[in-house]
């Protein structure tokens, strides 16, 4: 949380607003919208860890979202397991698939990794679509039961809202702890220069594995929550288009910033709602936006905000501690993520 001194208060205030929203409105449209923003923010923040902090652009995350979603759906529909157990299994399983994929793909550097992850994303979505005996293919997986924890049934929109808000807050809290920890700094050092990081005694492969597996876990968690919320799954959720959409959210909000994924997801999803009638054509607008962002705002909205705050002569004493300064330096680094030295 390096964007404003005292940003803790902003976050706390937003948290209470989020808690209070179902009390203020029972408009199902807004609640549904917020739930979707929370779910996708979790997935995008996963992508942010590996792409924004560790610097490895992964385009396979829609696939991992799909694994999480389908694991939960299948366990609940076909094995009649309870919600919590299914959720735990889907998160663990996504992480395990992530570990296997990571072991192969993280040996590749820069562009090779991005291309490999793109292909991996296509494989995952093709498998989900074509493995009809398991996933029901294009017919979709229907009739996922209402999530139940103990005797509490999450059947109303409000209860779902709190369930998903809980996981969202949990994920953001863990993200924050990781980013501000030594491990998080290790990720950034790898983004800035893998060779340099290794010469400092950082085990780059191990750190990248950690970042990648954690990021797939978040994607899997988001997928599982999505399945429990919509209670219907189609193979298109794992499609590569969703990975591109996640990339769009991440870049608009700010890649390599803690709150960027949330801001970007909320903003772009709202815009997309307005453009509902455009559905298929919305990329006519968002495609060029993506290009303009990498040209003029490489750290998205949150990055621009941080820059603004920095340039402004502050009347307040600088309260950012050492840790935060380290991350700011990361933001100002010319390198966005995954870059390799100029050839």
């Amino acid at each position, binding site marked *: 949380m390096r964007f404003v001194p005292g940003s803790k208060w902003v976050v706390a205030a937003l948290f209470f607003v989020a808690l209070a929203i179902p009390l203020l409105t029972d408009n199902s449209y807004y609640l549904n919208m917020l739930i979707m923003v929370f779910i996708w923010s979790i997935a995008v923040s996963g992508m942010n860890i590996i792409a924004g902090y560790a*610097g490895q*652009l992964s385009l396979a995350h829609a696939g991992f979202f799909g694994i999480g979603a389908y694991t939960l759906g299948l366990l609940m529909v076909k094995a009649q397991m309870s919600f919590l157990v299914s959720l735990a299994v889907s998160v663990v399983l996504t992480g395990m698939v992530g570990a296997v994929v990571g072991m*192969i*793909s993280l*040996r*590749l*550097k*820069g*562009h*090779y990794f*991005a*291309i*490999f992850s*793109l*292909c*991996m994303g*296509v*494989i995952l979505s*093709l*498998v989900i679509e*074509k493995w009809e005996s398991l996933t029901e293919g294009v017919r979709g997986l229907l009739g996922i039961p209402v999530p139940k924890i103990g005797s509490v049934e999450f059947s109303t929109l409000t209860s779902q809202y709190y369930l998903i808000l809980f996981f969202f807050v949990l994920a953001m809290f863990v993200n924050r702890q990781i980013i501000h920890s030594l491990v998080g700094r290790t990720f950034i050092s790898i983004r800035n220069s893998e060779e340099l990081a290794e010469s400092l005694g950082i085990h780059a492969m191990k750190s990248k594995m950690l970042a990648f597996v954690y990021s797939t876990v978040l994607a899997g968690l988001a997928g599982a929550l999505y399945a429990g919320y919509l209670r219907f799954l189609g193979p298109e959720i794992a499609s*590569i288009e969703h990975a*591109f959409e996640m*990339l769009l959210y991440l*870049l608009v909000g700010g890649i390599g910033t803690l709150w960027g994924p949330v801001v970007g997801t909320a903003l772009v999803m709202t815009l997309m709602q307005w453009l509902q009638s455009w559905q*298929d*054509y*919305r*990329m*006519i607008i*968002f*495609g*060029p*936006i*993506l*290009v303009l962002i*990498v*040209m003029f705002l*490489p750290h998205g909205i949150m990055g621009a905000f941080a820059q603004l705050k920095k340039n402004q002569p502050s009347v307040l004493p600088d309260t950012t501690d050492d840790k935060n300064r380290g991350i700011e330096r990361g933001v100002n680094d*010319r*390198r*966005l*993520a*995954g*870059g*390799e030295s*100029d*050839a």
Partner: protein
Amino acid sequence: MDLFFQQIVNGLVLGSIYSLVALGITLIYGIMHLPNFAHGHLYMLGAYVTFFLITDYGLSYWPAILFAVAILVVIGMLLERLVFRPLHHAPHINSMIASIGVMLFIEAIARKMWGSDYRRLDSPYDGIIDLFGLNITEQRLLVIVSAVVLMIGLHLFLKRTVIGSTIEAMAQNREGAFLVGINANKVSLMTFAIASGLAAAAASLAAPINLVYPSMGAMVNLKAFVIIVLGGMGSIPGAVIGGYILGLAESISGTYINSEYKDLAAFVLLILILTVRPTGLFAKEAR
């Protein structure tokens, strides 16, 4: 056995198209170190342009191809000038993301303007030739032969002309090329022009065999990337050989293994190869 040879021919047709698209990607990568994710969508645009020139403007096949190539050359140059040149000094990941933006944009435009339906372009050459007992449509033969002609043409251009060799020089050693006074901007503009032209040519040749639709570029694009990773990014022979290997692998596995999973073949091949050789089959040096 006939079926087998028939599949070989089909594989060569597929491979020719893949190779032409992959050549463009590899040329651009060699010069600009940019994996241009929008390249397959230029291929799609090329197919549409050819289609409309023939159906709406009544051009015959060959002039339509020439015009389509010319139009795509201009589009490619515009892209280089407006999007990728300004990003050249930015970190590589920025231009990679920009190319994704361009890709999404082109596909959405195509959907908006021409709808999502599949269109069929009638081949002017629909006769069937009997070649050593194999039946090949003239169009397929045309694809194979034209691809070879284009590849030889590209080879001669790169090796025998001064302008062409500036591309080679820059791909081999950027600083060295600057030292002998090669203009980097001109070379990258030219590379984009050639690459887009090749994609348009491939699309025009393939249009009568395949259908024309907005997402036709996406799969070709992914496969072309598989090919250049196989062949080593930036390697021209790698792109050609890789293209044919993938085309053959696909048509043979589609017949003998399972056509449902035909599209998977390419990606599984990629994973197997990268697992064993993280830098691709023909990479010049370890990266």
